[in-house]
């Protein structure tokens, strides 16, 4: 039998690849085992009908300009030994939070959002500064202060309930695993990453980022094993000694880092769901992707991302009885970034995301599944064009994925996009040499997952 790896990483998503780079760079023997036939996990890519698609990428959050020394982006570039130019990030044009009768524009310059709040909620501008300094002061990753109720904190700061809902809308959409309320720690992280730092995107999308990650990992001697699903983690006397793959083969390792999710990892450790006790995340989405025969700007759609909600109250929860809840949604146009040298995507793209119910989608038979997809494509577009210009008469192609698709390709329970509501900030499990990283450890999104992989690798596999 081959020698044991120093570290075996489960999952070749953002967090697994980042952890792998760190460990391989410091001369560990590392293998990443990935169940899917390709890398990327929740933020992968695919080809359909002759077109390239990104699974998730609306925006890379946490944008900071070249030369910035602070913030998660510069930290991850330093830690992974990348140049700022490698990710070729182009900044957003402008985004918008759209509620009935009130629109707040924002960009990568916080002063725009401030002036918008001063315009729409003139009595709340001091409260907003107060919030901003509280967010900046937050620096505590202990579980107790992380889990304070954000709605409670905001209720004490603001007297305009609608402004609270408007601020929560984009931050929950891009990173809240909890239903209705949000952990204060998560809110602070998302506030910084979206309002104080900002949105950017490489022209070539998530492929470029993944290409750099995997190239670096391999060039450092890391092994990437695709189509290697882990069935079970094998332990002896409280320590993991390796894994058994779905095809029965065994791989030995001195340490295991899993990015498959908390509940999913517990199952590999042989714990049935009743024992685990924790629930998997519930929040999952459908997304429609429409290719246009023109640029979105020619239709008057100039925003990079629009977060809309059709009443004064923002409802962040999966629908109980229907397949989707269309009261709120996100419209993203990857064309609307300020790409270098006026480069542009060859075709216009409009992506619309809506909240969905995993069980309902998963329970449909094949024929109904196809029919419901068509139906909800129309409905979610109808819902979105209340807040953005009509675009469908320029459509030349459409694609769509559902919670079932997300589950099928990432194996996350419920197709949950932001993982379990309860995060495991310390990354530990009941075995002393098995750790979790990625979405369920606490940091979500592309940048968040990469930071999670780096910090868990640093903390437990390098020191």
């Amino acid at each position, binding site marked *: 039998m081959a020698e044991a790896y120093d570290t075996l990483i489960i999952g070749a998503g953002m967090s697994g690849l980042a952890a792998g780079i760190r460990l391989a760079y410091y001369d560990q023997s590392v293998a990443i085992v990935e169940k899917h036939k390709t890398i990327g996990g929740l933020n992968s890519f695919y080809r359909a009908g002759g077109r390239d698609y990104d699974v998730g990428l609306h925006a890379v959050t946490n944008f900071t300009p070249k030369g910035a020394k*602070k913030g998660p982006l510069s930290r991850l570039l330093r830690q992974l030994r990348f140049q700022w130019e490698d990710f070729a990030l182009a900044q957003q044009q402008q985004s918008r939070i759209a509620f009935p009768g009130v629109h707040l524009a924002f960009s990568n310059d916080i002063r725009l959002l401030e002036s918008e709040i001063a315009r729409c909620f003139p009595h709340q501008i001091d409260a907003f500064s107060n919030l901003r300094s509280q967010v900046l002061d937050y620096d505590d990753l202990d579980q107790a202060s992380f889990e304070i109720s954000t709605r409670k904190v905001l209720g004490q700061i603001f007297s305009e309930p609608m402004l609270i809902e408007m601020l929560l809308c984009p931050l929950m959409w891009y990173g809240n695993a909890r239903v209705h309320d949000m952990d204060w720690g998560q809110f602070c992280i998302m506030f910084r990453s979206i309002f104080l730092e900002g949105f950017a995107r490489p022209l070539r999308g998530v492929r470029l980022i993944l290409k750099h990650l995997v190239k670096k990992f391999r060039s450092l001697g890391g092994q990437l094993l695709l189509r290697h699903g882990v069935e079970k983690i094998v332990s002896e006397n409280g320590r993991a000694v390796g894994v058994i793959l779905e095809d029965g083969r065994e791989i030995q390792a001195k340490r295991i880092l899993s990015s498959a999710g908390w509940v999913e990892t517990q199952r590999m450790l042989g714990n049935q769901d009743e024992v685990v006790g924790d629930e998997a995340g519930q929040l999952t989405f459908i997304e429609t992707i429409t290719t246009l025969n023109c640029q979105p700007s020619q239709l008057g759609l100039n925003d990079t991302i629009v977060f809309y909600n059709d009443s004064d109250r923002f409802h962040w929860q999966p629908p109980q009885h229907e397949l989707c809840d269309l009261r709120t949604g996100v419209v993203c146009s990857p064309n609307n970034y300020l790409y270098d040298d006026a480069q542009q995507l060859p075709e216009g793209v409009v992506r619309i995301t809506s909240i969905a119910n995993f069980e309902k989608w998963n329970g449909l038979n094949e024929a109904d599944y196809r029919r419901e997809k068509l139906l909800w494509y129309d409905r979610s577009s109808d819902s979105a064009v209340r807040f953005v210009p009509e675009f469908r008469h320029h459509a030349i192609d459409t694609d769509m994925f559902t919670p079932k698709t997300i589950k099928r390709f990432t194996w996350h329970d419920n197709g949950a996009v932001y993982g379990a509501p309860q995060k495991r900030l310390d990354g530990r499990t009941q075995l002393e040499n098995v750790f979790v990283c990625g979405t369920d450890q606490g940091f979500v999104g592309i940048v968040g997952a990469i930071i999670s992989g*780096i*910090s868990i690798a640093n903390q437990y596999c390098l020191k």
Partner: protein
Amino acid sequence: MAPEEIREVIIEILGDIAPDEDLGTLDDAIAFREQLELDSMDFLDIVMELRKRYRVQIPEDEYVQLASMNSTVSYLTPKMATIAK
């Protein structure tokens, strides 16, 4: 390695882990943390780079010795005396 060579090694390492920092103006008596934007992840990298490049082992409870250039060099001098640059 002599202390002066150890200093060069540290400058090289800092240049790799924080390429945007101006190291020409570094004051050896003052903590790195007060002059450079280094966080705990970067400090770990100084330790790891020393291990990777010169096989120098630094136990975790001695990381504090790497606070400034002066303290780093005097801490490393006995450890690296027999290592060639």
